[in-house]
């Protein structure tokens, strides 16, 4: 049985992947006060997915997080970001003008906070989904180039 050689790797990865996910969300939601932000959090999420596929095999990862989900997530992320701009325009402001989200005068901060949190969610979706899609596209080709399969 080939998998038995890597039992330490599997056990360590099983402990590490939840920690990596928690760290990604920490980076995401502390972007306003600390280093990092949605781009980094999205990359860390994608890296957790890649670690899972390196250790447990691509098929297991594709069953857990299917490819249609990652590419859909990426598109939804861009839509969420662009949608905040449209929301501001519907309220009479300029595109992506966060002050207009809740009709605040200059110096009001609620719209800024809400806008930044929503667009960072959009960036998180777009980056983690996009990078996972790239990884799936690259890793998913390997099975079909083996000579003995044809």
């Amino acid at each position, binding site marked *: 049985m080939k*998998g038995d*050689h890597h039992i330490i790797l599997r056990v360590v990865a099983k402990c590490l992947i939840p920690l990596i996910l928690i760290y990604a969300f920490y*980076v995401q939601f502390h972007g*306003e*006060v600390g*280093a*990092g*932000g949605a781009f*980094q959090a999205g*990359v*860390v999420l994608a890296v957790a997915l*890649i670690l899972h*596929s*390196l*250790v*447990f*095999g*691509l*098929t*297991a990862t*594709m*069953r857990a997080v299917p*490819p*249609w989900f990652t*590419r859909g997530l*990426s598109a939804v*992320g*861009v839509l969420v*970001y*662009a949608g905040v*701009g449209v929301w501001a325009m519907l309220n009479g402001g300029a*595109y*992506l003008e*966060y002050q207009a989200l809740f009709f605040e005068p200059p*110096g009001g*901060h609620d719209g*800024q*906070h809400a*806008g*930044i949190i929503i*667009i*960072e969610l*959009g*960036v998180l979706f*777009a*980056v983690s989904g*996009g990078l996972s*899609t*790239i*990884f*799936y*596209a*690259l*890793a*998913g*080709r*390997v*099975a*079909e*180039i083996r000579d003995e399969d044809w």
Partner: protein
Amino acid sequence: MTDAVLGGTGTALINILLLAILFVVAIAIARLRSLFAIVMLSGVYSLVSAAWYILVDAVDVGFTEAAVGAGMSTAVLLGAMLLTARTAKPEKPFSRLGPFIVCLAVGVMLIYATIDLPALGDPSSPANAGVGLTFLEVNWYDTGVPNVVTSVLASYRGFDTLGETAVVFTAGLAVALLLGFGERSLAETLRRSPQPETRPPSVPRDGDAT
């Protein structure tokens, strides 16, 4: 001035050490022929340069470099390496003399140009005295976000970040359209073996590339 910002000789020694490691790794990457070793060394290069960015107080850049350079692009390059040969073709020495001379000349010019650069963290340098200072002054009234990096990226330059997000999305879309979505291998594997757990991982194990 540099010592005052960087904190003395100890930090300067760490600086020199990190840059020396970067230099050695770069030379090793240029001389190696095994693609697996090159990919791993490029990950090492990213990690060391991330440590160096943090040493010069560019925390966000260092974090991004560690996540993207050491984590993501190493994995993507490993995936790309599986699609091609394991070793690069050997090259004759001096076959690229022209590009080497161009690189050397550009390097000498860049080093010459650094003499005119303002010192690291110089408060009167154009980057810190101009628009950067303005952002620091108006940020709290405008947005109420403590981290100026976040408020500049997400609020002041929201269009810019929207464009970057669209770039990431477009990159994923382009790769998926060129290479396929990767679902074919999933379907193929499921058809061939009912238990997917017996399939070995599709990335080289240790010793695969030697």
